């Protein structure tokens, strides 16, 4: 675990850096919508990787309210599949001009392709790059497509119409801007990714916006972090169920869920109609699922008040 220990230090450092970036948007970015207004507590992960909250005094950023007449960047992001270059090209201007959803999903697309391009940077060809997946032709085909799609970032620049910026426009830049814009999904993602930096208040505030993707991300993250035998998955499952019932994309096209095998041609265990709800139904004991369903109804009921305080009791920490 030497590397993980080293990573804990790195995460702590990045978390601090991330917070600074939350407080201080990039110099060339448009002005923030509003200033943070409440208190942020520090958070750490315990030995089991579970979120552990520590009281602190940092202010809480208030999530941006969903703006009317915005493009549905979430749907656009999912619609392009692995053609992330197309999405980033499409969303770059909106992201630059301060659309938190565009910023967040541009960041996600870039992260994915940065990872892919790094992995295959020394490949001879697409065929050679994905040859290790020969045992699963469906996976091989998915990966070949992603290799080709992400390679477009090597030859093209989706930000060519934006002002030049030192360091360009990497994924980190957009993720920071999305948090600065208080996009709820970005806030939840940042809270989950940066141990010790955020409080239940931050997460509750983001969730209280009613953003179903934020609810899903939060619930799914908690559910998959825990061992199946633990009690925490019930509350986490409740958040997933509430999100799915409230309209979140809970199917295989949501790349945040590990459902890519469904509809990928393997036809083992699931189809393209499989959802996160099916996953919970299959993995939880019946009595736990019943409890999660009841809790989900409670959460949905509480969500209508858009009041973070009402949601705190549903946070599993």
């Amino acid at each position, binding site marked *: *675990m030497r*590397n*993980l220990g*080293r*990573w804990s230090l*790195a995460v702590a450092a990045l978390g601090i850096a991330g917070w600074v970036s939350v407080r201080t948007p990039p110099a060339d970015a448009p002005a923030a919508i509003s200033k943070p207004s409440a208190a942020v507590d520090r958070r750490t992960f315990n030995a089991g*990787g579970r979120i552990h909250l520590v009281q602190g005094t940092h202010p809480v950023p208030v999530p941006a309210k969903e703006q009317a007449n915005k493009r549905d960047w979430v749907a656009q992001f999912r619609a392009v599949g692995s053609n992330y270059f197309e999405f980033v090209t499409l969303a770059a201007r909106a992201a630059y001009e301060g659309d938190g959803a565009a910023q967040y999903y541009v960041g996600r697309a870039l992260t*994915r392709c940065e*990872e*892919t391009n790094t*992995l295959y*940077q*020394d*490949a*001879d060809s697409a065929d*050679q790059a994905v040859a*290790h*997946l*020969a*045992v*699963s*032709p*469906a*996976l091989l085909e998915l990966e070949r497509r992603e290799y080709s799609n992400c390679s477009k970032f090597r030859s093209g620049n989706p930000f060519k119409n934006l002002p030049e910026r030192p360091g360009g426009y990497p994924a980190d830049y957009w993720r920071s801007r999305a948090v600065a814009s208080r996009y709820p999904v970005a806030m939840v993602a940042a809270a989950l990714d940066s141990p010790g930096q955020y409080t239940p208040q931050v997460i509750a505030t983001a969730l209280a916006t009613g953003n179903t993707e934020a609810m899903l991300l939060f619930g799914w993250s908690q*559910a*998959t*972090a*825990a*061992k*199946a035998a633990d009690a925490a998955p019930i509350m986490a499952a409740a958040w997933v169920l509430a999100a799915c019932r409230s309209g979140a994309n809970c199917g295989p096209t949501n790349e945040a869920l*590990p*459902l*890519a*095998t*469904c509809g990928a*041609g*393997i*036809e*083992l*265990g*699931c189809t393209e109609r*499989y959802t996160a709800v099916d*996953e919970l139904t*299959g*993995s939880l004991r019946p009595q736990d699922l019943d409890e999660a369903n009841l809790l989900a109804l409670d959460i949905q009921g509480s969500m209508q008040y858009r009041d973070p305080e009402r949601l705190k009791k549903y946070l599993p920490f």
Partner: protein
Amino acid sequence: MTVLKVSLSIGAMLIVTAGLSSIAAAQEQGSGEYMFKSIVGDECEGQRCIAVARGLFGFLDRRLHGLEGNGRACADCHMPSDNFQLSPANVEARFQNLQMRRLGNKRADDPLFRPVDANDYRIHGDSASDFSNLRENALVRITFPLPSNMHLIDPATNLPSSETSVDVWRMVPTVNNVKLTGPDGINPWSRGPNASGGYQLDGRFATLQQQALAALTVHAEIQVAPRQSMLDDLSAFQSVLFSSPGVRALSNAVSAGVTPLPDADPPLNSLEQAGKVVFTRACGQCHGGPGQSTPQAPAVRYHEISTQCPRPVDTAVTPPRYVFKPCPASLARNVRTYEITLPAGITTVDGQTTIRRTSSDPGRALLTGFVGVGLPASDDWNKFDVPSVRGISKTAPYFHNNSAATLEEVVDHYTAFFKRVQANLPAGNKLPPAISTDGVHADRPPVPEEVPALLAYLRKL
């Protein structure tokens, strides 16, 4: 020179092609995921099928999204085309293939060859490039913190060094049949970890999830801890991998609590049947239970079978009573000498509180530090768990350091091992149950006339 290079490259390509031929053949037999289903079966053996499918993806995935690994997938070492293990032939084929690719692309890569598994990693770090242990023996580096009572001896000074960890080199075991191995709750050793068996050669992991986490951390060098669900999925996938339909059926019967359990063996001819009788008598005491990996009491759980280097040599009499095949230089170079501080109140016969032992891999002693107390058979020096022999015909070479190239060499080794046990037996002691049914007669080891039958049977496993 160029001709030689090209010849090597062509040879390597042929080996790679041969290694992958089973995949290609499987794919030709059906569209889509024929190979996948041929591996995992249609029923997922009690695992959730989607978890199995995700586990396969995770097993093959070099990206390891968000974990910041080194580009290795589980399958880079547990090669699906090589029965989910790693053989020297395939390593060398991949190495030669990489060299050939580098003629056209200087940055061509195969993540199997990461510096962490180079011999000179401790000296040259990320620029290490001597992959001798990997190429010659298909061994990977495993690093253990030294128990507080064990120190390495600096060969230059012959004094204890300041090293706090040690590298040993071990083969990559197949993940076939793991559903039938691991902790079984019976016949416990006198100290842990995992007194009743575990995963990996020394049984140090209690679950497949722990094993997967450690492998991702050490071999894939991930920088971010994976989610529990990913480890669960990998476990689900590995739990449906079997070396044959017979073993799969046996595992299903075990899971269902069916008795009597079905025979996992394929149809046997008369020679193989005779070999099975020999196996049951000579090998089954230790390679017992459904997984053929559970020592049957009174045989003890963890054993030393003299596969480490240096190998024992009988110098007491001429001709020697037992002769092991000497370790080749490619394995002998991994030997280190340890100084072990004995527990308080215990000394050697000449009053020393420390002892020195030499081994290429002290096994479970690296987990416990329990060395030099009582008879050699009862401490942890050079002790390993008993691996399954199901599917053994497909997983050459053998032993923890791949030191036996063939099943014939395995049998030869055990013949010498059994002889050594008898030769070293203190006067007046009973023969151990591993070689004797009554403590008096060494009636378990195969006699030379039985070896062909035993080999015939092993080749059917």
